[in-house]
């Protein structure tokens, strides 16, 4: 659902950096349904014919999000807890609760790993 747009022809030049494959090792906090996810303000995002493409200005990296991920991104316009995301997705899509929770956590971890969102676990 989220793709690092690396190595595609032309992107290296656009980014102005030779190394698109460098991904920081992000310290993985424990992710719970209560965790609050906030969009990284460093990112510029644009709708792209149904998908979303975003760019980290600071790191010069591009990401692409498709499918249900685009709805999740939309919901993250305001900082949102994982459980709220799960509720919204479950209401809008034909998916059972357990699968929804699980897929969402996986996706959230990817977003965190790529620095697309930050997470706070403070109650």
């Amino acid at each position, binding site marked *: 659902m989220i793709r690092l747009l690396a190595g595609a*022809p032309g992107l290296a*030049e656009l980014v102005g950096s*030779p*190394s698109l494959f460098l991904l920081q090792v992000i310290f993985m906090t424990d992710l719970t349904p209560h965790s609050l996810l906030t969009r990284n303000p460093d990112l510029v995002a644009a709708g792209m014919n149904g998908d979303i493409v975003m760019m980290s200005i600071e790191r010069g990296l591009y990401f692409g999000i498709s499918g249900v991920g685009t709805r999740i991104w939309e919901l993250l316009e305001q900082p949102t807890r994982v459980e709220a995301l799960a509720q919204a997705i479950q209401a809008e899509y034909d998916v059972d609760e357990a699968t929804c929770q699980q897929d969402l956590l996986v996706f959230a971890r990817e977003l965190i790993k790529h620095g697309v969102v930050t997470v706070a676990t403070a109650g």
Partner: protein
Amino acid sequence: MAGLYWLASYPKSGNTWLRVFLANLRSASTQPLSINALNTNTMAGNRHRLAEVLGFDTSDLTAEELDRLRPAVYRWNGTRDVVQYSKIHDACLSEAWVAPAYVAGTLYIVRNPLDVAPSCAHHWNCSLDEAIVAMGSAQTNLGGSTRGIGTQVRQQLRSWSGHIASWLDTRGAPLHVIRYEDMHQQPLDTFAAAARFLGLPCDVENLQRAIRFSAFGELASQEASSRFVEAPASGQRFFRRGECGGWRDTLSVGQVRRIVADHRAMMARFGYLDDALSWIAAQARP
């Protein structure tokens, strides 16, 4: 840090085969890579890539002006702290093309001109005699039309002998020469030496895997099931025979004599002359 390795050869001399081998060597893949996965962006004659680095349109320049600018592009590419392997068919035009400041080395492949000629005729869609004349002429170019442009820029070849001499005799980065025939007949030694020269893994297991995945049978069967992007525009096959010595069934005595006359010294230098001369003599016997 000099990061550019030239993979240089006259056309139809095994360059693609070598690149398929290298791609498989560098990949950890347990399956042969697709022949269409070769990165054509790094070819020396890629017009788009040249324009991107230059910052202006190559189509507004003459071929001569562009040839004067190309070393600066390669120098830029070769000093980006990244290793690149770049196929090149141009003759080596000057020391600027092999400056050690940006060229880490040139791997040059030679193939018997008696086998190169029929392969060129096929790829260029011309007669054997026309191919032989082209190979003997110092004025032969790839993509030399001045009435329009293609996606590759004009590449000066010189003659077959002149091409080899230009790369072997121009002073600059380290040079390693391999023969197409040795790639066939002594693959492990030949590919190992090439890999070592290029700074790539040369453990036996990896080499054997890469040799297997780039075997001619594999390449031809891939092309049979899906087109190869570097095949001639006419729609004919790229991986046709890939053998050594097919010239004996293809060339006439007159054609062999012509090629020997044009390239005697270079053929002797690379061990192709004796066979040619004995064959000519054998044809004369009733």
